[in-house]
């Protein structure tokens, strides 16, 4: 299993209700169903992903995230997850607010545009960064809202979206001392846990 999904799985309690936004082939939900008996649903909009979920017996619902999540009631889930998807969402603020409406616990992961290789790509070659974690050309990419960790945290601050926890990892989803020291420069993927609990913030990590 993808290491970021393993990190998320560690946060899930048995029999939780989990909503996975942009669930891909359903790897996380299949794992959580098998190991934690969760009642999980994944949203996706890609025919191949939906087919893969159905073959795996994952509850996948064909739904365009950009058309909103109004069909999900307040507090109807224990956890809403969005892995490597927020950069492709039309209105990230609304999306985060909606996630926190549906569950008091939310996990968001995304690629860091402030990663040193991205910075070097732009600085030295003068071209929009492309890397293993960002493989698309600027004109042909679903990633319309790329950001750095610092950008994301500023956004959460401005919109009172409390960050309870942050992990920063490399391409293999390992954490190193270097990226704990300068996460926005050396971290490749960030994993943020947001919570509606007002005390959550105190348990959080330092600002980037």
């Amino acid at each position: 299993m993808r290491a970021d999904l393993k990190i998320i799985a560690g946060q899930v309690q048995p029999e939780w209700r989990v909503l996975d936004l942009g669930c891909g082939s359903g790897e996380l939900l299949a794992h959580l169903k098998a190991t934690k008996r969760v009642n999980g649903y994944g949203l996706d909009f890609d025919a191949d992903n939906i087919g893969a979920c159905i073959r795996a017996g994952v509850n996948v619902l064909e739904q365009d995230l950009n058309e909103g999540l109004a069909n999900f009631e307040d507090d109807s889930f224990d956890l809403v997850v969005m892995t490597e998807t927020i950069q492709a969402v039309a209105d990230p603020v609304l999306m985060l607010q909606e996630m926190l409406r549906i569950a008091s616990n939310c996990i968001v992961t995304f690629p860091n545009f402030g990663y040193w290789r991205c910075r070097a790509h732009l600085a030295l070659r003068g071209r929009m960064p492309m890397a293993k974690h960002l493989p698309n050309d600027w004109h042909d990419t679903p990633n319309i809202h790329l950001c750095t960790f610092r950008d994301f945290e500023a956004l959460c601050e401005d919109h009172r979206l409390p960050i309870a926890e942050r992990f920063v990892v490399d391409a293999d989803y390992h954490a190193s001392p270097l990226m704990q020291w300068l996460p926005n420069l050396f971290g490749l993927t960030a994993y943020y846990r947001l919570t509606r609990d007002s005390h959550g913030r105190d348990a959080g990590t330092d600002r980037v």
Partner: protein
Amino acid sequence: MSRYATDHSVGIVTPRTFDGPGPLALRSGTTLERFSLVYETYGELNAARNNALLICHALSGHHHAAGRYADDDVKPGWWDNCIGPGKPIDTNRFYVVSLNNLGGCHGSTGPSTVDPATGAPYGPDFPIVTVPDWVNSQALLADHLGIERFAAVVGGSLGGMQALQWSIAYPERLANAVIIAAAPKLSAQNIAFNEIARHAITSDPDFHAGRYRESEANPDLGLALARMIGHVTYLSDSGMGSRFGRELKSGDLELAQDVEFQVESYLQYQGRNFSKAFDANTYVLMTRALDYFDPAHDHGGDLAAALAPVTAKFLVMSFSTDWRFSPSRSEEIVDALVAARREVAYASIDSQHGHDSFLLPLDRYFDVLGDFLARAHDDVERGSDR
């Protein structure tokens, strides 16, 4: 060209008749003293008797879903593109059961049947049947065939409503439910179209208050008109446009001709054929069953509450240009299943063919259906279907 256009067939099939074991109590409070259901089966029931799949038909459907009665039959069963060896409903895996519903006009007990109490056909006096009545009678057929539990119950449109009802009424008797292009209940607009169709039939002078057989008449014009109205609601504007456009029948515009445009010719042809093949009282009865269906009614309109007993895994599918039962109607079922914490997958298929899409071999539609049923079959084989 669809990847699913194939010659593979279940071959020659023969309908059989099941005589009900006793009187059938109906929702309306009346009892049908005797009833028969005509049905067909395709594929083999396995030794564990757990690979059965039930097909529920839509408004004008019947038991002849696949194969041919004779080699020179012009047309195969109505869902032959979907049922057969290697097809989405794979007869190499499943024992497929398809029946004509109670009240039908293709061999099952219905308005054309002789009422044992009077010695005359029931005609308009055939009791009102509802979707729950159909499902109850289907369960008796399953008993007769030695099927304790279906691997899946599958239906499109009104057939999807039966699959939904199965999951609520007999939760332990099906592992999976497939609901295609359906709705949890009819909207006012749906009922309005049904009422126009019924009115076309009952206002035909040849209807004779439903006693047309005794008068050796048949409300052909009313039935044809009902079918024409129905057909418009089955197709989409864009689908009709690309199929017929404003094409003229003769090539030249000859003002004041009876049939000027291709679409008129098509509708008249459909209407005429239907009036010869379908019974007027059955049409009135079947549309009433559609109108009355509302499993949430007994739960204060709360569909999620109605779904509390459900254990089946669901596949729900809709088609983008279907305006008879639009995607949002399917999503009502999905949302209620999610709220009730039930297992459900939902696919919204892009198609320009409106409600009729559920009868067409569209690649993505059949991919999703085939994938879901393959998984359902694997679960049954592994004993992990509960």
